[in-house]
């Protein structure tokens, strides 16, 4: 009797495990699709910002409009998720000064994309930006900058970089 109870508990646990695994699998696919859709947003964003650039006749004012809208949405999002929007002023002198420069780098990124799209086209813009991203990510990994774990450059990584550059040249040439 006890044995049977045990085994039925076991099989119920097994069932739970299976349905959990299935749920996690579906959730994983959902997250992947979400990532793909978000990726799609990126070249569309550059294209839309480029339209604004021509409308206002300035890449900087176009970026400014994009950032202003983004700031407003993030204010709402922060209130929604955190229920408050408050910076602890005590952290300002304590934290390193460079943590405030992320926004400026974002500006360079968005504005560069607006300037590049009409010249390079959408695919080449995405690909060259991506290649720069990988190169710098490998350098950051190799030297362990910003406190990331050191991950030295190796043969396959170097080969990957060469392939990316070949890819850029092919897309640019044809």
């Amino acid at each position: 009797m006890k044995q049977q109870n045990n085994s039925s508990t076991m099989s119920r646990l097994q069932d739970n495990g299976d349905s959990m695994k299935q749920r996690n699998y579906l959730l994983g696919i959902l997250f992947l699709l979400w990532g793909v859709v978000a990726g799609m947003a990126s070249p569309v964003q550059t294209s839309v910002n480029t339209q604004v650039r021509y409308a206002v006749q300035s890449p900087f004012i176009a970026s400014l409009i994009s950032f202003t809208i983004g700031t407003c949405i993030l204010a709402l999002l922060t209130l929604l998720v955190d229920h408050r929007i408050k910076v602890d002023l005590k952290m300002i002198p304590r934290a390193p000064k460079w943590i405030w420069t992320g926004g400026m780098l974002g500006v360079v990124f968005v504005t560069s994309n607006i300037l590049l799209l009409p010249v390079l086209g959408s695919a080449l813009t995405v690909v060259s930006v991506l290649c720069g991203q990988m190169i710098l990510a490998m350098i950051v990994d190799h030297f362990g900058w910003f406190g990331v774990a050191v991950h030295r450059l190796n043969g396959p990584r170097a080969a990957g970089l060469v392939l990316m550059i070949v890819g850029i040249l092919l897309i640019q040439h044809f």
Partner: protein
Amino acid sequence: MIILFLIGGLIAGGIIPVQTSINSRLGKEAGSPFLASFISFFTGTLTLVILSLAIDHRLTFAAKSFLTHPWWIWIGGGILGVFYLTTNILLLPRLGAALTVVATLVGQMIMAIAIDQFGWFNVPVHELNIPRLIGIACMFVGVFLIKKF
């Protein structure tokens, strides 16, 4: 000349991992990734006000461009930017860095190819051909090798 623009693209891309590292530290100090994104966008907006004034000597533009252009271009860029950023923040801990990059990259390439192919958003038409397809395949293998090893 096009080489200069390609180098510009490489530099713009190189900014991303630096910005991600900086913003994740900001997130730790501020205690919330959303607050960190907000601060990042806010300081970016201030930077652009200064840049626009310094380079264009203006912050305004012809009001009639609101009438001559579709309404969604004014809010589209900001919305899509926040969507992309927030998705990355939310997916990273669930999918891991490699899968997050690959998933968003697949989306980027599909959309970029479509934009070039059909000349959407007034982008000049660049039709997809076999060498371009091989180039894109090279990219994917390259990213895979770098992320895997």
